[in-house]
C-alpha cells in the first residue's frame, strides 16, 4: 500500500479471491473527483475461434507488485489523475470471471480514460503475470509480445 498524501490512497494487489469490480471502482473515489474509469478484464469464451474451458493465472508476486507500483507512479506523472487502484487475480478463473481491474479517478474524465487505457496496456507488457488457456483437449501458456517489451 502506497499513500501519496493524506487523501490519496493508491492500491495495487494480487489475490486468489474473486474480484468485486464495483468495490474496487468505488475505493478510488475522492471528494475532488467527478469521474472514475474502470477496466474490468475477464475470461473470454473464445480466443481465435478456439473454445476456452478455463484460465490459470500465475504471478511472480513480489516483482508483479513492484511493477504495478512503478506503473502507478508513472501514470501519476503522465496524467492529470487523482487515484489509482490495480488488482489482479491469480489461480483458476472460469469464463466471465474477472482477472484484472484497473480503476482511475480524476476531477475530469478525459484523463481517467487515457490513464486507464495506458495502465492496462503497460500492465500487459511489464507486470510478470502469465496465463494458461485450458481447452477440452489441451492447454497452452500464452506468451506475450516480446517485441513490445524490448
Amino acid at each position: 500500500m502506497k499513500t501519496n498524501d493524506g487523501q490519496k490512497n493508491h492500491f495495487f494487489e494480487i489475490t486468489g479471491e474473486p474480484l468485486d469490480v464495483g468495490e474496487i471502482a468505488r475505493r478510488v473515489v475522492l471528494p475532488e473527483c467527478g469521474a472514475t474509469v474502470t477496466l474490468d478484464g475477464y475470461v473470454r469464451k473464445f480466443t481465435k475461434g478456439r473454445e476456452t474451458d478455463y484460465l490459470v493465472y500465475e504471478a511472480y508476486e513480489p516483482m508483479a507488485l513492484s511493477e504495478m507500483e512503478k506503473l502507478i507512479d508513472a501514470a501519476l506523472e503522465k496524467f492529470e489523475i487523482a487515484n489509482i487502484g490495480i488488482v489482479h487475480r491469480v489461480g483458476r478463473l472460469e469464463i466471465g470471471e474477472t482477472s484484472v481491474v484497473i480503476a482511475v479517478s480524476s476531477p475530469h474524465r478525459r484523463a481517467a480514460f487515457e490513464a486507464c487505457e495506458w495502465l492496462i496496456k503497460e500492465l500487459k507488457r511489464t507486470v510478470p503475470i502469465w496465463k494458461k488457456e485450458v481447452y477440452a483437449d489441451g492447454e497452452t501458456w500464452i506468451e506475450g509480445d516480446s517485441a513490445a517489451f524490448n
Partner: protein
Amino acid sequence: MNVKVLFFGATADTVGKREVEMSFDEETAASAALSQIFEKFPELQKNHGRKSLHFAVNQKYADDDEIINDGDELAVFTAVSGG
C-alpha cells in the same frame, strides 16, 4: 556464490521446477548466468529460444550485462501475458 533461480509459467513447465539453487563465479553477468542455466536445462533454450526469454534480478528486469551477486534472486520467464 549461490543464487536462487526461479521459473514461472511456461519456463517452470519446461524445467519441471519452480526454483533451483545454482552456483556461479563472482562477477558473473546475467547473460553468462543464463548460458549456464541453459547448460543445466537445455530444454529451456530448445523450447523457448534465448530471444523470447526475459530475466529479472531481485525482482527487476535486468540487462544482459547486469552483474549477479551472492544471494541474488534470478528469474527466467517468457514474455508476460497477464491482464
